[in-house]
């Protein structure tokens, strides 16, 4: 037996950490006397928490199974081959943890070639093949189905997609060739490029069927049975599968490609290579034969898999999907207090948005308070209005709407907080005001009520200092808009207790937010870094750099928006306030900008005005505010100053122990500032561009974490 094991070990290139997906084959008697089908189940032997994926071992298992069924097809023992997945999962595609270990272009190309070599056999068996897409199908999981002759899909499939471009890859096991040739270029590009770049959007089984990816759709209750009945009818000629003819006119393809390129430009601005590789491959798919199409995919994969953008993307993906679920440094979940009622101090827009979110996610009573009845009424009315909108959109039922409406009430008397387990304040951003509010709240709430502050820049420690129970105060910093932005910075003051902290993390998780633990320091992580970065851009303008030069200097990073667009979103007055706070704290690094001060003082909403044709321009009013600096910078100078400033600031934050590690800085930038995956947040980019080494004297992340291993 040992010999056998060794032989197998040698011939099966299973990487050590691969959870190998087996290709289990069983014969099924097709209904209606259509004959025997060899039905392959892709199953990694784990439950639904571990989706089936393909690494080298899984591909080898599939290869071996396909060899057997090909022989049996030739021997006339089977009339067809079926392919399906374990319950709820068809297949989640390539095992990317293994892709991250690829070090050479040759290895990468071989991985692509092996996938092609195995999967294409499904279309070359000598008998028809049927993919029965019973559950989630992603990436290579979609591609393996595309190689089959026919496809059915379950109406219960929650997600089907080709997310590769989102991570910095392309669908390289046949997707860019087979999909456009099945559904046409426009739909294919939507799935290959637009959806992944749109927060990795996926489509449902129903949408996939409508798009022509599947030939037939059946309800989940007896999906496989009905798929087999359908397959039998196809095999016996009772059902003829008709697919629309693909228009191969070059102009049609180019129009679709141009449309998709516009989407890619809007998202990554030409910076990340993956979507553009995908565009080229889809263009090729119009004329290329299968061999040429697949070979081009192999070459593209070889380029991309070693690209820093993909390594950063994969790193970012793991942060967002793993680290964000288990926040580093958070105390034990068991310490969290149950939250059965919440108080919100302030009834302004932010406070009202918070009240709505607490009511929706925690499903507990929420009381809003403010100084006068008019503000309270306005705040409550806002929440009730939003609930009405959700109801009108069909997002919630009438019962749920009435429950939510009943949960949110208002009062001018903080005594209404008497029974609250958590009170969060969102009042004016001034220390004396916040201290006053907490003192009043402490007078009415129970001893163990947790007090949270949504401050974006003030000290938690100082805010708690005069309270009887300062350990109950914890920072809970949302980003605007509260309902949309996925990040909450949870701030630990000097005296903040583990119970308060654990409760904050538990509440954050229930709000479906990703939480990062931050020590009490001015402006925490996201605002501090954005302010520092913005400070350099504004300083350049103060020095006489034309605004259009300063504002486009960062374009090569592919950020979600330019610095001045961000300034407009935040509001010049708020940005000025945060800037002043940070200037007071760290005057040597955070300057004050004359230009910003003038814009804020003039009450202007933005640097750029928008012309009738939608193009931005500098109004005379703003132009008049430009400082007459005599030392204008080039774009390169602005960019390197801004990035060096970022690196310096991150280096200081890390050595001050503000967060557990650089991963938390990146998580904050990904989720709080929307910085792109291809930068890995920020530190992978600062490492790979050499800026970290130059400014801080070391890399932030070891080689191999968000880069090709040494």
């Amino acid at each position, binding site marked *: 037996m040992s010999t056998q094991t060794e032989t197998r070990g040698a011939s099966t290139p299973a990487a050590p950490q691969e959870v190998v997906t087996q290709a*289990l*084959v*069983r*014969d*099924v*008697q097709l*209904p209606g006397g259509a004959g025997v089908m060899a*039905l*392959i*189940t892709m*199953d990694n*032997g784990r439950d639904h928490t571990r989706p089936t994926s393909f690494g080298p071992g899984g591909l080898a298992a599939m290869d071996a199974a396909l060899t057997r069924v090909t022989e049996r097809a030739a021997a006339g023992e089977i009339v067809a081959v079926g392919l*399906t997945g*374990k*319950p709820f999962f068809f297949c989640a595609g390539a095992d990317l943890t293994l892709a991250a270990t690829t070090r050479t272009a040759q290895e990468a190309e071989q991985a692509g070639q092996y996938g092609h070599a195995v999967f294409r056999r499904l279309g070359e068996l000598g008998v028809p093949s049927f993919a029965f897409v019973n559950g989630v199908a992603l990436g290579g999981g979609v591609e393996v189905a595309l190689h089959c002759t026919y496809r059915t899909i379950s109406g219960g499939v929650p997600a089907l997609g080709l997310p590769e471009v989102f991570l910095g890859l392309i669908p390289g096991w046949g997707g860019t060739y087979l999909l456009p040739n099945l559904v046409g270029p426009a739909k294919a590009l939507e799935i290959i490029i637009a959806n992944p770049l749109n927060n990795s959007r996926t489509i449902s089984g129903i949408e996939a069927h409508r798009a022509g990816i599947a030939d037939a759709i059946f*309800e989940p*209750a*007896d999906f*496989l*049975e009905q798929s*087999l*009945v359908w397959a039998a009818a196809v095999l016996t000629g009772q059902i003829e599968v008709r697919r629309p003819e693909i228009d191969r006119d070059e102009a049609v393809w180019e129009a679709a490609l141009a449309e998709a390129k516009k989407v890619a430009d809007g998202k990554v601005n030409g910076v990340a290579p993956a979507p553009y590789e995908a565009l080229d491959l889809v263009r090729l798919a119009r004329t290329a034969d299968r061999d040429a199409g697949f070979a081009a995919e192999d070459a593209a994969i070889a380029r991309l898999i070693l690209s820093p953008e993909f390594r950063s993307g994969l790193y970012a993906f793991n942060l967002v999907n793993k680290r964000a679920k288990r926040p580093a440094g958070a105390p034990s979940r068991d310490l969290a207090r149950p939250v059965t009622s919440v108080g919100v101090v302030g009834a302004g827009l932010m406070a009202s948005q918070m009240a709505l979110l607490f009511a929706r996610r925690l499903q507990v009573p929420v009381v809003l308070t403010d100084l006068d009845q008019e503000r309270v009424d306005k705040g409550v009315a806002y929440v009730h209005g939003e609930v009405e909108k959700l109801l009108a959109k069909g997002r919630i039922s009438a019962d749920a709407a009435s429950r939510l409406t009943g949960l949110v009430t208002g009062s001018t008397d903080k005594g209404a907080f008497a029974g609250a387990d958590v009170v969060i304040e969102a009042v004016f951003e001034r220390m004396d005001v916040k201290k006053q509010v907490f003192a009043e709240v402490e007078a009415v709430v129970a001893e163990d009520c947790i007090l949270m502050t949504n401050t974006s820049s003030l000290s938690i420690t100082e805010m708690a200092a005069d309270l009887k129970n300062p350990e109950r105060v914890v920072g809970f910093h949302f980003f605007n808009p509260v309902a949309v932005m996925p990040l909450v910075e949870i701030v630990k003051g000097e005296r903040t207790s583990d119970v308060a902290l654990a409760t904050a993390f538990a509440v954050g998780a229930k709000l479906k937010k990703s939480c990062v633990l931050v020590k009490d320091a001015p402006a925490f992580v996201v605002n501090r870094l954005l302010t520092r970065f913005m400070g350099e851009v504004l300083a350049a303008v103060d020095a006489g750099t034309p605004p259009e030069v300063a504002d486009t200097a960062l374009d090569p990073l592919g950020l979600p928006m330019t610095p001045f667009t961000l300034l407009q979103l935040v509001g010049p007055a708020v940005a000025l306030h945060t800037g002043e706070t940070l200037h007071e704290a760290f005057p040597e690094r955070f300057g004050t900008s004359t230009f910003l001060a003038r814009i804020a003082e003039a009450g202007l909403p933005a640097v750029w005005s928008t012309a009738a044709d939608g193009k931005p321009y500098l109004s005379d009013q703003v132009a008049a505010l430009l400082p007459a600096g005599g030392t204008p910078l080039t774009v390169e100078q602005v960019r390197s100053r801004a990035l060096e400033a970022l690196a310096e600031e991150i280096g200081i934050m890390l050595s001050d122990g503000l967060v557990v590690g650089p991963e938390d800085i990146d998580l904050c930038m990904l989720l709080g500032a929307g910085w792109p995956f291809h930068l890995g947040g920020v530190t992978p980019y600062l490492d790979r561009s050499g800026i970290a080494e130059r400014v801080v004297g070391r890399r932030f992340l070891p080689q191999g974490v968000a880069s090709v291993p040494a």
Partner: protein
Amino acid sequence: MPGSLRDVVFVDGVRTPFGKAGEKGLYAQTRADDLVVKCIRELMRRHPQLPPERIDDVAIAATTQIGDQGLTIGRMAALLAGLPKSVPGFAIDRMCAGAMTAVTTTASGIACGAYDVVIAGGVEHMGHHPMGEGVDPNPRIVAERLVDTSALVMGQTAENVHDRYPEITKERCDAYAVASQARLAAAYAAGRIQRDLVPVATRHVEQGWGLATADEPPRPGTRMEDLATLKTPFRPHGRVTAGNAAGLNDGATACLLASADTAAELGLPARMRLVGYAFAGVEPEVMGVGPVPSTEKALARTGLTIDDIGLFEINEAFAVQVLAFLDHFGIKDDDERVNPDGGAIALGHPLASSGVRLMTQLARHFETNPQVRYGLTTMCIGIGMGGSVIWENPNHSDFGKERPAA
């Protein structure tokens, strides 16, 4: 509410292939409730003219109503099958006659005007729920000798029936069993069984997905000499063996019942008309004799005699219990009218599901035997009962004339 009773018709019945209980069985890793769901969906698929919201109740029987047979299985199966949420459902239990009782109970509801259309059926996954799982017999049963302890072990009750009727020998039982296997094999060869089977996708962690399309228990080609040497597990030197009894099985059944006028309104086939039914109790130690008094009672209540019955579907829990019934009514062991396509000894008896299987097969026999006017479905029931349901054949020339009082 109408002042008079309405006619109830059997529209259609289906079942899953029956499997052998246990780790190696067909349904080892398939849920019991999913078996029911497949049956309900097949009924709906076969009768697209039936608006699902017209179903007034879903009665599903199971002997052990926990785990994947719990949670008010009729209601849950209806939801899982995708019937509208407005369709109610319930769980029902009369041991082996669960599905039969689901039919008689809901049929009575139709007759009195509470329902127009119902789904009735049953399930037993004896692999997941071995007989007696979780039971807690009252200690008074032993203390007061209310029932002999053998009454709770069905094989022992069958041995007790042998004691009561010494003329029913092991050889007669084995011969009956051989015939049951042969009749089923012939029916399979002619394609008569398959047409009412619902294929079931069966998932297995180590083997992947398969498809159940045929019964697993049958042993075609069984001969007397194969059975002669089998062990008698219930009693040393006893007579009851695995060969002359039904096995331990997994499976589900379901049927559509409707009032005759609703069936006509919706264009649903009326394949049998319910004439009447009865249940009767006997000593639990000899539960196998139950069909005798229940049939006598059903005949008496419908004004029929045993001679009016042209076809019998009697459940074969044990050959001895069938032979006791046949002896009582003076019917030969190999009478062609009795279980013409074989029975549970060959194809299995997933307890609470079997009643509807009997009816589904009788409905098929009615189609090919228009000369037969009345048929009987009957079964013995654990803890000492029998159940009998008499049906009329709509294909008979006298159908609808001079009906006996229901």
